[in-house]
């Protein structure tokens, strides 16, 4: 499979009044054409920030990429001109946002919001052709085409998210970034959306970055998984590599252990000890070391490299025996 | 620019040209038409279509005198004597009466009948000839509006037409200053038939008179436009178009003069007049006015009954300082509340002058008075008036002898109510006797008025009696003596405190000439000329 997106050693920080937030700290991420990558991590791990970085739409004046490259289809996003960026966004890479309630413009009909994508990227299409495409995509996401004249507030959360998906997909992008598309939704609706994404992936062959903190979603949908902690990817591999649950980063193990099981009747859960590190004041060494049950002196001093075993890479000294791999 | 309001006037202009010259030949006054004739024809070619803009500071109170119960005010003289003519003309410079619409007039011995001979060549602005009928009708409007006229011509009966050029006015009781009344802006000649045709509302909409200027257009609060009356019996005035523009803000007035938006300003503050004088191309004319600024005491105040306190105040206030410094010497101190030269006013030196400025004496008076150091006297002035500034100085003067005074700057209507009802300590007001008579004095002390009835000062009875006597005393000597007695009482008991005679001013640019400031308010625009 061809490499579509390659993020190399990305550093992003937010310069706020109070402090500098180190949101992304040296992320490497490769996504191939047609592949679904799951990006998992707790709140504040830097998932959204990474995604925004790919589109180069970090909040102006606040968000700053301090280091690294984002190479999309051979071109560095960070060096693109405004025009190139605008042409890339939506057409080649599009994004579904976390909160369907607020990510649609409340005063523009959903039809027009979908149509805008075509207007921006397929200037040659006639009005009728565009209207046809809008109808098609709405049908695809399961919304009656005649409802395109309605406004976002007239739709339920699930439908809004489907409209978000329709917007993202109408230009048939090569890469779709879905930022927690189901977190705000009910389980039953969430299942519908996941079903839809699966179907799209199958039918359109779109590459996908699925951002979530729900390990269940990843298991169901993705080919590869990257686990993020404090702005770093600490583990990456195929779904199988990770869900085998034999060799995992201690953090990943911790995540798995926190989730109550449906089939066991254990009385207590095993949460990860301690709290997420403060992104304004990152510790030296492995970011996870003060919560890690396997911590050694070395962890506090030195940030582990990525150790690789086939497709499986882990940033933890426990897997030093695997041998150093490409950075992640 | 806005002179198209009256369509009829344009049609008339051709024929009226001849009428004008005819009239000019027959007139008897000294308007100097010969001398100005050449000049006027010359200038009219350059300025024929030019409008003379005059800036005034407030709205005209009543554009048709006698049409209703609203008094024309002093400040309206400018327009009233442009649109209308009185029966007799009062020259405020010489203080003489001269023939006007009435070529001759006289009265019987007891003053109960007045006989007028009228001009035969006077036309209204609509071309109607003025008749004796019009004059008598106009006079007979007086009793219909008692509120305005009672105070100005008490005892008026009615007027009757004798023949085409003669009328007789019958007085129920004689009034000594009736002559002055016939020369005042309270009594001008209106067109009877026109009124009957359009009613008073129509008349107010488009007034018609016999004056040198015809009404053209008006916007309430903004301007009154006038055009020269070609039919005017004294000849058409030199300036053909006049616009009176209401500019309430003093700075805007000055700026408008400087930019040429207005050509003439009336009654600019002395301070600003001095400045205009310094600018090239502008002229200022000053004249001491008959209007006097004086202090009065409220009938419900301590001051009404406490002579010592009144005297203390009178001695504490320094009119000269106000005159010389605040008014830069352009106002004049007076010894009584009536300006010299006014009808029946006793000569200076023949009456007891007002309490002079003397701080020591003031303190002594104060010590003998009922004033307590915690008392705060209220000084009433109309907000935004010149008196506000003067009041501040007086406050300072009173402070010097230990009297606390607070200024109450209030709107005109509250001012009149409070002064009328006597609910104040001190009030400050500038007034011109509207009849150029000592009428101010008797107006204050005529029994029956609310303010007089309310007050309790010592000489009240005597003042009331004298006031009534002054109304009907036809003999000037005797009448002057009555006023002398009244003024003596007033000054001895400090019933009023006259401060100074005001100053009338005109500021104008180099394009106009012949503008004279006069002591009174009956200014004649008709005499002004383009340069």
């Amino acid at each position: 499979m061809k490499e579509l997106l390659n993020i190399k050693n990305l550093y992003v920080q937010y310069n706020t009044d109070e402090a500098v937030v180190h949101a992304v700290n040296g992320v490497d991420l490769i996504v191939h054409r047609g592949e679904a990558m799951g990006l998992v991590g707790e709140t504040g791990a830097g998932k959204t920030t990474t995604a925004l970085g790919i589109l180069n739409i970090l909040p102006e004046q606040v968000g700053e990429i301090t280091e690294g490259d984002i190479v999309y289809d051979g071109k560095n996003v960070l060096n693109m001109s405004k025009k190139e960026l605008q042409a890339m966004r939506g057409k080649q890479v599009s994004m579904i946002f976390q909160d369907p309630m607020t990510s649609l413009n409340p005063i523009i009909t959903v039809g027009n919001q979908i149509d805008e994508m075509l207007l921006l990227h397929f200037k040659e299409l006639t009005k009728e052709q565009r209207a046809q495409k809008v109808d098609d995509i709405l049908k695809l996401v399961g919304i009656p085409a005649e409802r395109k004249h309605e406004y976002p507030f007239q739709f339920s959360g699930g439908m809004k998210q489907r409209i978000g998906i329709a917007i993202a997909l109408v230009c048939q992008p090569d890469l779709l970034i879905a930022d927690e598309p189901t977190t705000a939704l009910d389980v039953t609706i969430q299942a519908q959306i996941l079903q839809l994404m699966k179907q799209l992936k199958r039918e359109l062959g779109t590459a996908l970055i699925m951002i979530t903190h729900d390990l269940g979603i990843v298991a169901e949908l993705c080919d590869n998984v990257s686990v993020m902690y404090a702005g770093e990817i600490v583990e990456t591999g195929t779904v199988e590599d990770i869900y085998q649950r034999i060799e995992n980063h201690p953090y990943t193990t911790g995540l798995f252990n926190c989730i109550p099981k449906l089939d066991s009747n254990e009385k207590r859960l095993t949460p990860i000890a301690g709290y997420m590190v403060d992104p304004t004041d990152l510790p030296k060494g492995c970011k996870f070391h003060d919560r890690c049950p396997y911590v050694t002196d070395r962890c506090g001093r030195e940030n582990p490299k990525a150790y690789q075993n086939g497709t499986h890479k882990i940033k933890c000294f426990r897997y030093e025996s695997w041998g150093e791999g490409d950075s992640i | 620019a806005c002179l198209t309001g009256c369509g009829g006037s344009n049609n008339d202009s051709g024929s009226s040209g001849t009428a004008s010259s005819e009239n000019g030949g027959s007139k008897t006054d000294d308007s100097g038409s010969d001398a100005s004739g050449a000049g006027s024809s010359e200038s009219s070619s350059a300025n024929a279509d030019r409008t003379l803009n005059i800036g005034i500071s407030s709205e005209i109170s009543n554009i048709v005198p006698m049409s209703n119960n609203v008094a024309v005010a002093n400040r309206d003289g400018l327009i009233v004597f442009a649109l209308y003519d009185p029966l007799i003309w009062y020259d405020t410079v010489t203080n003489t009466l001269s023939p006007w619409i009435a070529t001759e007039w006289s009265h019987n011995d007891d003053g109960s009948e007045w006989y007028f001979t009228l001009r035969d060549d006077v036309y209204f602005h609509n071309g109607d000839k003025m008749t004796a009928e019009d004059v008598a009708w106009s006079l007979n409007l007086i009793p219909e509006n008692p509120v305005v006229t009672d105070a100005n011509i008490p005892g008026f009966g009615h007027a009757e037409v004798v023949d085409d050029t003669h009328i007789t006015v019958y007085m129920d009781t004689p009034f000594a200053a009736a002559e002055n009344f016939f020369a005042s802006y309270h009594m001008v000649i209106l067109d009877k038939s026109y009124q009957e045709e359009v009613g008073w509302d129509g008349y107010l909409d488009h007034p018609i008179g016999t004056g040198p200027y015809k009404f053209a257009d008006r916007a309430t609060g903004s301007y009154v436009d006038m055009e020269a009356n070609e039919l005017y019996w004294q000849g058409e005035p030199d300036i053909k178009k006049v616009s009176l523009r209401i500019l309430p803000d003093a700075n805007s007035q000055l700026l408008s003069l400087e930019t040429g938006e207005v050509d003439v300003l009336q009654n600019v503050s002395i301070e600003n007049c001095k400045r205009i004088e310094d600018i090239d191309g502008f002229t200022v004319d000053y004249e001491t006015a008959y209007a006097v600024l004086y202090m009065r005491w409220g009938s419900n105040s301590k001051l009404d009954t406490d002579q010592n306190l009144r005297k203390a105040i009178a001695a504490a206030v320094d009119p000269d300082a106000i005159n010389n410094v605040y008014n830069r010497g352009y106002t004049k101190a007076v010894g009584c509340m009536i300006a010299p030269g006014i009808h029946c006013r006793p000569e200076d030196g023949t009456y007891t002058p007002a309490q002079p400025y003397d701080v020591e004496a003031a303190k002594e008076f104060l010590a003998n008075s009922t004033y307590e150091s915690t008392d705060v006297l209220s000084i009433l002035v109309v907000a935004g008036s010149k008196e506000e500034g003067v009041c501040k100085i007086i406050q300072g003067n009173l402070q010097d002898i230990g009297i606390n005074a607070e200024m109450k700057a209030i709107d005109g209507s509250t001012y009149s109510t409070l002064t009328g009802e006597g609910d104040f300590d001190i009030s400050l007001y500038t007034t011109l006797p509207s009849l150029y008579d000592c009428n101010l004095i008797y107006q204050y002390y005529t029994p029956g008025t609310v303010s007089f009835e309310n007050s309790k000062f010592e000489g009240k009875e005597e003042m009331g009696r004298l006031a009534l006597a002054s109304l009907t005393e036809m003999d000037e000597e005797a009448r002057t003596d009555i006023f002398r007695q009244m003024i003596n009482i007033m000054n001895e008991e400090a019933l009023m405190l006259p401060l100074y005679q005001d100053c009338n001013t005109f500021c104008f640019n180099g394009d106009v000439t012949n503008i004279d400031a006069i002591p009174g308010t009956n200014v004649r625009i008709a005499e002004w000329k383009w340069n």
Partner: protein
Amino acid sequence: MSQMGLIWLRFRKNKLAVIGLVGIVIMILICFTSPLYISWDRVVTQDLLITNQPPSVQYPFGTDQFGRDLFARVLRGGVYSLSSGFIVMMGALVLGLIFGSIAGYFGGMVDIVIMRLMDVFMSVPNLLMAMTLIVVFGQGITSLWLALALSSFPALARTVRSAIMTTRSAEYVDAAHIYGASTTKILVKHILPNCIGPVVISATIMLGSTILGIAGMGFLGIGIASPTPEWGTILSEVKDVIRFYPYLGIIPGTAIALSVIFVNFMGDGLRDALDPRMKK
């Protein structure tokens, strides 16, 4: 660090806001200490021999048309101007809090009636209000205060109302209900303190507009009575001669402008500091 501390931190980062705060504090200090070295006599004593003097050593700001020391008048005038602004603001604040919280907390019919009433108050021009109050209660600083407070409190009441309506449904208010707190306690301890942000902002801005409002009334002759040396009054007293003695106007004008600008800078800074959305 407390909430206040954080706000202060954000506030401090805003240069203009700090300038505003420092500026207004300096003005307050200068003006309010002036009675210590400027006697009332110096403020009101007239000397007609030295009218309209330009600035000099003896009269740093010159003298006005009554020969009064403008320096003394402007400094002492600040006491009146600034405290007027403050008093009107407090008055409007009290009224606004009362009406706004009643309308916002109880809602329904009470809300509708109060808000209609506020509409009525809002459409009476403050000038008319001042003029009539002056006529009824007599000219004086209190009438002006009352008029300005009456015509400006509806805006505050609205702010308070909408702030309360959003705060009212916060979960911590429910929590207070759940441990039996009374309505008054909930309003005073839990709701109002959390509405204070937008209210404080409107109030600071009101401070500036009050100072201007009094000056405007002075222009129309319904300002504070002489010889009280309020800035607006000083300015309107000289308005007719201002062109020829510009310093008479420039000095009180600058005082007004500075105080208004400072107060507004401060208000803007507070707004930004209180509203995390604005943060950089």
